[in-house]
């Protein structure tokens, strides 16, 4: 496809949701009024996110798959010369999959909300906020200027805050405030690091900086910048011990909020590691990588143990909270992959990123639908003494939940497997200059983590999907199986999980050349 067309396509994916958000606040034009104002604005949300998804698919189709390492569809215009900030957009093999994932998940969320609007104030603001969120996330993956990256990073905060604080469940205002304060604290610290790089290197342009590979930055600068930027990104990712905002935010968020938070917002953190820290401050990363790896594996074990504790009978564990903690564990694998500083590990990390977006997105959808049916996600309430017996009572729902669980625990043949395996593979033979002994320990611990992950997910499946039908029906007689709109929202995720699992080359072919370029190889 023509380069100018691509350029406009990419710019449109960023700008269109913003325009759509403004449109959502305005009264619907005549002829599009629909059945009610609420229905009209929700439909508007579906239309706009659908259009963005179409644009992103067109972008993927027009992408030159033979050269995924080069930036494509680039736009580069001066915006604020005083600070040296340029509107520099572009995509390569690393950002394209994340961009499409964002567009897809947002669209699915819009479809889901069209049929199942979360309880709260008017849908007008809801749709507008989702669209702003989409624009900010897509912009994060599409910009190539450090300051714009920071701007995009901040754009998502306010919409997510209001999504949790207005449409969330119990304790929503506190969780929302906690979410925004943690992330803001992280991102202002990150800003200091970005400014340090920009002032020392004389440019904020990520492509130029990545090509330099840190050769214009002194060792001290790289250390300071890597530390402060790394901290900011680690809050977002989240890395243990900076994760404590995440379980509360997920538990309180409405279903679509959780899906977007886990599915795409967390990826902004790990994407930053790959896009900014690895190529721009290689020496800094070299120093901090072992610490990152250590925290990552602690996160894996910590997340799994927390989940095991929540899954046990009688502890009153919340299923949504459990999935949130499992995110901490999964993101631990992503961070471990990054910490290896090898092409294998980083490819694994990027793969696990996408896989986590698909699988955890699906799981949050499923848990949300359970909450709609039971009015609670308390595992003890759901499962009772003998289990919720979803297989017997709502076989499709039970089947999907079991599918999500086994995908999440990394069953070969599904998306969850490759990323984690490659990350551990990378850790087995880390980059030169890193202490192999330490990384071997990390590999061993991570491998043990996969066992724990399998354990808690199987416990969840046993308690929720299996059980005596008669006993379960005594407490909760009516249980609807999967509805049409739920199928519509979930099928793409299931299909992609299977495709990515069976045909990993589809993704790895995109990311691998780009990763090798970022690492400084040819």
């Amino acid at each position, binding site marked *: 496809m023509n380069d100018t067309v691509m350029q406009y396509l990419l710019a449109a994916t960023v700008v269109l949701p913003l325009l759509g958000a403004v449109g959502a606040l305005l009264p619907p034009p005549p002829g599009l009024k629909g059945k009610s104002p609420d229905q009209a604005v929700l439909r508007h949300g579906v239309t706009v996110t659908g259009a963005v998804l179409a644009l992103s698919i067109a972008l993927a189709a027009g992408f030159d798959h033979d050269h995924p390492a080069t930036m494509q569809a680039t736009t580069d215009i001066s*915006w*604020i*010369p*005083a*600070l040296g*900030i340029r509107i520099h957009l572009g995509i390569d093999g690393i950002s394209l999959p994340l961009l499409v994932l964002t567009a897809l998940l947002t669209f699915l969320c819009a479809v889901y909300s069209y049929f199942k609007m979360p309880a709260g*104030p008017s849908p007008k*603001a809801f749709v507008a906020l989702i669209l*702003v969120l989409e624009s*900010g996330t897509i912009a994060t993956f599409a910009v190539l200027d450090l*300051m714009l990256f*920071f*701007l995009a990073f*901040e*754009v998502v*905060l*306010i919409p997510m*805050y*209001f999504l949790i*604080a*207005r449409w969330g469940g119990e304790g929503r*205002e506190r969780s929302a*405030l906690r979410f*925004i*304060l943690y992330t*803001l*604290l992280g991102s*202002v*610290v990150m*800003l*200091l690091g970005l*400014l*340090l790089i*920009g*002032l020392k290197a004389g440019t904020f342009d990520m492509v130029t900086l990545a090509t330099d590979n840190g050769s214009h930055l002194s060792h001290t600068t790289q250390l*300071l910048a890597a530390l402060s930027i790394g901290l900011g990104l680690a809050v977002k990712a989240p890395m243990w011990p900076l994760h404590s905002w995440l379980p509360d935010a997920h538990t309180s968020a409405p279903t679509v909020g959780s899906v977007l938070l886990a599915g795409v917002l967390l990826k902004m953190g790990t994407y930053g590691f790959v896009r900014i820290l690895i190529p721009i401050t290689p020496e800094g990363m070299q120093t901090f990588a072992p610490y990152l790896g250590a925290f990552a594996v602690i996160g894996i074990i910590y997340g799994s143990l927390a989940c095991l504790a929540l899954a046990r009978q009688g502890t009153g564990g919340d299923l949504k909270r459990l999935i949130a903690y499992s995110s901490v564990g999964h993101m631990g694998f992503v961070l471990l992959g990054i910490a290896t500083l090898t092409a294998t590990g980083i490819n694994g990390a990027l793969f696990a990123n996408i896989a986590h977006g698909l699988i955890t997105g699906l799981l949050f959808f499923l848990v949300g639908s359970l909450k709609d049916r039971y009015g609670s996600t308390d595992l003890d309430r759901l499962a009772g003494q003998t289990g919720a017996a979803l297989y017997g009572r709502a076989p499709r729902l039970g089947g999907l939940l079991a599918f999500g669980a086994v995908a999440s625990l990394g069953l070969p043949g599904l998306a969850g497997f490759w990323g984690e395996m490659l990350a551990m593979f990378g850790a087995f033979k880390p980059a030169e200059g890193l202490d192999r002994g330490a990384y071997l320990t990390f590999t061993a611990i991570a491998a043990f983590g996969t066992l724990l992950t399998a354990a808690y997910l199987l416990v969840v499946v046993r308690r929720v999907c299996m059980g005596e039908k008669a006993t379960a029906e005594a407490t909760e007689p009516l249980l609807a199986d999967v509805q049409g709109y739920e199928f519509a929202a979930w099928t793409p995720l299931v299909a992609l999980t299977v495709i990515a699992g069976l045909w990993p080359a589809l993704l790895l072919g995109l990311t691998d050349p780009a990763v090798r370029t970022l690492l400084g190889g040819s």
Partner: protein
Amino acid sequence: MGTLIQSVDWIAIAPPVIAAAAALVVLVVDLFVSDTRKPLLGWLTVGGLVLAGLSLLPLLDGDRSTFCLTVRGGDCSYVADHFTIVVQLLVIGGALLTALLSMHTMAADELPAGEYWFLLLSSASGAALLPASRDLTTLIIALEVASLPAFALVGIKRGDRLSSEAALKFFLSSVAATAVTLLGVSFLYAATGTLHLTSLAHGLTTVDPRLDTLAKAGAALTLVGFAFKLAVAPFHFWVPDTYTGAPLPIAAYLSVVGKAAGFSGLILVTVVALKPYADVWGPAVAVLAALTMTVGNAAALRQRPDAPRSAVRLLAWSSIGQAGYLLVPIAAAAYAGTDEIGTTIAYALMYGAVNLGAFAVAALVARSAPENRLTDYRGLYARRPLAALSLAFFLLCLAGLPPGVIGLFAKVAVFSSAVHAGLGWLAVIMALNVVVALVYYLRWTALLFTKSPEPAAVILPLTAPLTAAIALSAVLGIALSGAPQLVLRFATGGLL
């Protein structure tokens, strides 16, 4: 030896002179108009300020100076360079928005129109003179011309105990600060034998070693008066009570124009006059900046939302926090050169526009809820969607989060100057402050969109001037968010 008579460039001094002339005109016209036609005076004021603003246009090309000595090096007392013009723009623009706000309060609070407009214009004239002054006498006079009418304005609500108390507090502490500054100026004069800023800077490098202590003490004391105006901690105690006691537009005026006077004076004294002492005042200003922002934000965080006048009180404390950010580039200028102060100007322009906007919405809410509690803003969106959205935008600009893009980049510029000057610790403290500040700005923003449990209060119709004030601020904020370069270009320097 030539003539001692100095030539006067009337075009250069037009902005403060027009404001002063308008003040006199208003005072005289007040004697001849009947009570029913008093609003005319307000429009006269607005006209005068617009005229003063337009008189900046011929000065745009840059350096003009007047009141120059005809002997000895030819130092000038009045310089209209880019720094002067930008600060004058801020002062006159701020006064203009204040005037629009006042028109609406005037009727509601039964303030004496003639005196009010006269005092406002006089004060604006002084504040406009201040950035142009290049000798210490003119600086002090300008500072006093800006302050004295302000005391009267704060206490203008007749029969209001809070208002008189606020005025007295403001007056006493301000006079004390000015006295200290005068003492400092006399010390500096004694040590160097000159009052012109540039020759003072020259003189300080060759001070008699026996007078060295005197000169240093003088430098420190001189800064106090300006620090007071800018409400730098520990000279900030007057702010919350004065703001809450004063009529709302005057609080807005003090928070923007008063601050502009304070920081432009501070810049002139530190960066120009006391340049040789940069190693002394640089760290001092940096510490004061950290202290000011921390004190302001911590106190703002502790405001109870249901206390009377909590909205204005919150804005008062937050303005102290913002003053801390304004100081950061001044401190950076001690390390990295004069160009850094452009960032202060850029930040002040952003702050001026959105803070006045926030006060304008506060004035709107004060119509139906005179107590002006934060809780009165609950559910504003349901009653007045546009006003609520504007206020949310202003608050997020102040917090520095998108959609307030200009607030974000103004903060980025300030951070950038701190990092550039190697003041990493200050940048980190500021980062923490930004997070703390978000808590109270966001709480307020969230209140706007919460459902109000009580039946909606009576909605009073908007008045035209108030609408104009809110709209003007909002349009400015949005335009700047799209094109931050408009103000941020000052951050690259070349002002002084």
